[in-house]
């Protein structure tokens, strides 16, 4: 497996190689952005060993959850938990 964690790009330097600061729920670290050239500040990326390896697509992220929420009993279960 490969520990990969989503975080938000909060700064990018455009250097060689391009580096940026990624925020992981309040914890921030330098990350190499060379493999996500399309990513901009505000985007979320999956970070593995200090490299962004994938841009997270919010629409797909939402769709996955929507599919699960559409399962029978899902809404009740969620409401039940939040009660």
């Amino acid at each position, binding site marked *: 497996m490969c520990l990969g964690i*989503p975080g938000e790009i909060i700064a990018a330097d455009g250097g060689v190689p391009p580096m940026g600061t990624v925020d992981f729920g309040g914890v921030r670290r330098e990350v190499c952005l060379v493999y996500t050239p399309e990513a901009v500040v505000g985007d979320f990326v999956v970070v593995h060993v200090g490299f962004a390896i994938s841009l997270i697509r919010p629409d797909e992220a939402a769709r996955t959850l929507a599919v699960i929420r559409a399962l029978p009993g899902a809404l009740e279960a969620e409401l039940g938990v939040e009660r």
Partner: protein
Amino acid sequence: MRYLDEYRDPALARTLLAELCATATRPWTLMEVCGGQTHTLVRQGIDELLPAGMRMVHGPGCPVCVTPLQAIDRAIAIAARPGVIFTSFGDMLRVPGSERDLLGVKASGGDVRVVYSPLDAVRLAVAEPGRPVVFFAVGFETTAPANAMAVLEAARLGLDNFSMLVSHVLVPPAMTAILESEHNEVQGFLAAGHVCAVMGWRAYEPLAAKYRTPIVVTGFEPLDLLEGILLAVRQLETSRCEVENQYARAVLRDGNTAAQHAMAEVFAVATRYWRGIGSIPDSGLVLAERYAAFDAERRFDVDGLDAAEDPRCIAGAILRGSAVPTECGAYGTACTPRHPLGAPMVSTEGTCAAFHLAGRSR
């Protein structure tokens, strides 16, 4: 954390479990390929909650655990050289070689340092121009682009004191080897999401078709895995065998082409030995000839080191799902977590270690 916490929702997890129970009519056997997936399954106890009879076979584990003894022994030999700064991800430090591990080398005076990123090793080489800095490049396809970039950076900076000990593995050939096995009991795969984030999932399409096996690319959170299991079971119940992408938020069919280019530039595909599985053609990466100057194996002349795994180990059968650890003659006696003979006892995510920690006896 966004894109993490929402996929850990217990209520939705229970919904998925309920749907899974409603869907599964037979005791299907699936394999999750990646140690990260195993980690979540075990840590959350998901395998306990699956429909009766349904079985998750833990896959080759993490790349760390399948690193062959020989590579560990070579790493240890290099790290023990006076003057060398040996850098590695933290995981590798505890993996036992034939005689000892890298932590032991460090304790005996070797300069072994944990890095979080391969670029940290390059920075160290810049900071310590008088000393050879070696990076232990292990990992699946997920890690290879990062390690490739370290070589490219070292070349760009003209570093002559940086080299890499490469022991990279590729996932699809290992899946093929499992499917090819005569005694294979795995009926469907959860493919590793982060490997696919880099490589895409085209490579799985011929596998799914040829072996008539569903393959679902999943993420690593509980909802990801449960949805992945559900998708695979739905295929099995309906006799489909496709590749599906549960982890679409991070994985494209073509993967990350920039990362693939860097890998292709720096590495070449080669036959590779997997600890506990054996030799698999085209399942590893070595440094491409044009980057031979950065090859620690050549620089430190450690070719002579060869190590053999213990013949008593039946890890292959366990990985294929055709045996359980308590059927192994070495289990609990010659082979324990303190003295592992094979990969499934090396990692706590390994099936043998999990059995041992749970106190199961032969």
